[in-house]
């Protein structure tokens, strides 16, 4: 039942009413609404019960293994939430003078330093509110760099064909055009194609390494050299940073700019879709273009860097300090891990992925790029099953839900047909991986003898398989009161 369907005219939650009866009639009629908005009229307990019960209808990290590739669904330490939710932090007004919020600024400053250090970069701006906004900021800085040098023709951004959709979309939002670079069958970039693509129109290239194919781009040094020689810059999509934390730094690989998805590598909550946070870090040459606001420290107190100090900044991306509360959580997580913990992140996320890959290979699954090392994630393709049994990746995924495992990312990257991108993360125990592997194997066996059953999954969730076509055709996007 919807909260609206529990509404009754005249019901109201009195504990939440302001005590004064206001006399807003003072406002001229023309500014006022004629009827009260159709918000639900429910009691506080109904609301609590409703949303508590709704929450129970979710899979989440706190309840299920959630190996959603490219999303790094690792344990979100509760301490990060509890400590960031302290009243003093929550009560800070964004316009509060810096003298009142030194403790908060200290956290942001420290986080800037930590991110610069682990990315091998020179400067950091924390403000982008998700990976995609980090991409926008990064590409905008690349563009600003070229323009500042009078290099006005560089409007083409090279993007591997396996890239995440945000990469080309961000390029477009920055007014650049996208040129796709193909991938070789071994998962590395087609350098020959890259060479053809590079030229005076090249603004730069946007890579994730490890790529979304779950393999490390081995030619990165060469790519970096080629792009730089051609006058372009290198952008690092940090969505996969979990795989290499403390092993190799984007700055050392030759990248000029990187965004870091804190909601992935730094375990801030995914929140049913966000908030994320996508700080950008840059090499020396992009420093002048960093967005604002940023925090400076003079040895005794912290302050916002003034706009006037950043004449070349690409500007602001949010009204205030990005997703500040998420930055606090990431900072707490970074301190909990420390340098020792950070190195272990890559170790164990990679161990987990390679273990599942090895076991699935043994069990007869088709692994994409099977000759390569898995990084923190890897791909299986169910094309054979789709062709032979009529059971596709989506069916496998839905059936996994019945086994109590969240579906891995499916149908991305687009390069591999009927693919499943599996990212276990470092925080999952071997027994959990074994359970997941067993489930996949049992689904494969089920599909071989009872494909109909598999295709009708899920069977045990609050709803059976939903009709997405109907959803898109007969749009029902908001509740409206039944007539009469």
């Amino acid at each position, binding site marked *: 039942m919807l*909260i609206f369907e529990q509404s009754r005219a005249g019901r*109201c*939650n009195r504990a939440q*009413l302001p005590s*004064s009866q206001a006399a807003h009639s*003072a406002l001229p009629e023309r500014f*006022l*609404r004629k009827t009260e908005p*159709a*918000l*639900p*009229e429910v009691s*506080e307990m109904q609301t609590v019960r409703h*949303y508590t019960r709704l*929450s129970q209808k979710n899979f*989440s990290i706190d309840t299920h293994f959630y190996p959603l590739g490219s999303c790094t669904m690792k*344990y979100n*330490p509760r*301490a990060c939430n509890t*400590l*960031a*939710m302290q009243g*003093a*932090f929550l009560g*800070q*007004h964004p*316009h509060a003078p810096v*003298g*009142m919020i030194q403790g908060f600024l200290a956290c942001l400053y420290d986080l800037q330093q930590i991110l610069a250090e*682990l990315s091998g970069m020179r400067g950091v701006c924390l403000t982008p509110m*998700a990976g*995609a906004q980090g991409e926008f900021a990064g590409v905008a800085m690349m563009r600003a760099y070229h323009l500042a040098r009078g290099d006005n023709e560089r409007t083409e951004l090279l993007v591997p064909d396996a890239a*995440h959709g*945000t990469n080309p979309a961000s390029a477009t939002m920055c*007014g650049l055009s996208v040129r796709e670079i193909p991938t070789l069958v071994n998962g590395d970039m087609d350098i020959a194609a890259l060479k053809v693509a590079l030229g005076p129109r090249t603004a730069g290239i946007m890579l994730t390494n490890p790529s979304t194919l779950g393999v490390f781009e*081995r030619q990165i040094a060469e790519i970096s050299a080629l792009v730089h020689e051609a006058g372009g810059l290198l952008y690092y999509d940090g969505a996969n940073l979990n795989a290499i934390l*403390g092993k190799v730094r984007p700055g050392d690989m030759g990248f000029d700019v990187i965004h870091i998805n804190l*909601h992935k590598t730094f375990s801030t909550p995914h929140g*049913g879709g*966000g*908030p994320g946070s996508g700080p950008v870090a840059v090499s020396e040459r992009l420093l002048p273009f960093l967005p604002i606001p940023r925090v400076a420290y003079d040895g005794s107190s912290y302050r916002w860097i003034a706009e006037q100090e950043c004449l070349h900044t690409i500007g602001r*991306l949010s*009204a*205030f300090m990005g*997703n500040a*509360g998420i930055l606090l959580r990431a900072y*707490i997580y970074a301190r909990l891990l*420390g*340098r020792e913990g950070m190195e272990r992140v890559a*170790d164990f996320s*990679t161990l987990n992925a390679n*273990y599942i890959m090895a076991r699935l290979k043994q069990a007869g699954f088709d692994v994409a790029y099977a000759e390569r090392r898995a990084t923190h994630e890897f791909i299986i393709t169910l094309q054979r099953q789709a062709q032979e049994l009529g059971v596709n990746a989506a069916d496998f995924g*839905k059936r996994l839900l019945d086994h109590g495992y969240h579906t891995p990312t499916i149908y991305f990257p687009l390069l591999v047909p009927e693919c499943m991108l599996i990212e276990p993360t470092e925080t999952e125990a071997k027994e959990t991986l074994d359970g997941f592997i067993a489930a996949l194997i049992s689904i494969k066996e089920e599909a071989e003898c009872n494909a109909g059953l598999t295709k009708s999954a899920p069977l045990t969730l609050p*709803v059976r*398989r*939903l009709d*997405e076509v*109907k959803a898109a055709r007969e749009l*029902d*996007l908001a509740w409206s009161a039944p007539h009469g």
Partner: protein
Amino acid sequence: MPFIPHTEDDIEQMLATIGAANIDALFDEIPAALRVDGLPGVPTTMSEAEVSRLMTQRAADVQRPLCFVGAGAYDHHIPAAVWEIATRGEFYSAYTPYQAEASQGTLQLLYEYQSMMTALTALDVSNASLYDGASALAEAILMAVRCNRKSKSKRILMPTTVHPLYRKVVRTIVLSQGIELVELPYDACGGTILAAALSEHEGSDITALVIPTPNFFGALEEVDTLTDWAHQQDAQVIALVNPTSLALLKPPGEWGHKGADIACGEGQPLGIPLAGGGPYFGFMCCKKAHVRQMPGRIVGATLDLQGKRGFTLTLQAREQHIRRSKATSNICTNQGLMVTAATIYMALLGREGLVRCAAACHDNAVALVDRLTAIDGISKVFDQPFFHEAVIRFERPVAGLLEQLAEQNILAGYALQGDYPELENCLLVCATEQRNAADIETFAKHLQQIIGSH
């Protein structure tokens, strides 16, 4: 190694299965020359107990003043249930509901959120959030350009009564897409869009007009006239609104004869803590005709294979993961948890609660302005009705005053001179439902004392 569950046995068995000698071997595809040996510049690990202590100290180094500043972020009461429920693991640690059947909790909640926002704005559809109010405005402008096929100019009329920081964000985001932002000055008496400035643009190709109300000065724009004017020019109307105010004020969908085309704004007033500036969330609603140009996630109701109602992400063909460089936006991760909180907030306040909250804000703001302007040397600057903020002028620079009031633990307002040099000695002050008569008196007394002792 906090948060890593592996035992030595596990590691051994797993390596054996993989056929690797040790964990380091798993990184053998990374060129050795690029490898780093750890991260010596990062501080060493701390236990949760140590970090708790550090963060408690840091929190103690943040003051909690009596707040009379708004200017884009508002100090409303947040019912305790909002965050006790929103931070439940099942909401907090889930991601975008790609697998609808395993995410009915989040999806139904988003559908309810969309329904609440359409109820507030009187528009047909809502998306499931954007980053914040400022970036939502930028997205609304890009959307209006897509919606207004007739217009070729990509010319947007942007009043200076729009939040200065929003205008900066818009500039950052939209300028590289060939969009022209034309500033509309404000009326020095009313503090609203200068009607005369519109006539200059009469008949020209305008893609969209942004109408902020309450505007940055807290004043209510003449939305009906403005909307009709824009529609006469074949321009789209983008409403930039405060969601709390919509419980009281005419909703964008009912502005003028045809209603605004798009409404957007900052969702923070709906149960989101001030939190130093974020995370907040941007909301966006529009007419049904424009839904395919909407950026961001949208949830729809549908049926399962047994005919039971369920909810799913829909119209995904607009989005970057399908449409890539031709998507309506690059947004992927949005502000889901904030919307979770906002939905619970709106349900907890309910219809009467939000109406009463909005009314109390207005009344308190009127009381505040009346009280302050009763002080010698303080005057009201604009005469247009306002919602819960207004501009007052002092007879001397406000910087010193703000500092002295801060020493009394009062956040007195937002100084306007930086953004509006002509508004010398002016302060934007705000009162929400949280500021009672005693608070206002405290503020006034301190102010009197400071001014008097000058």
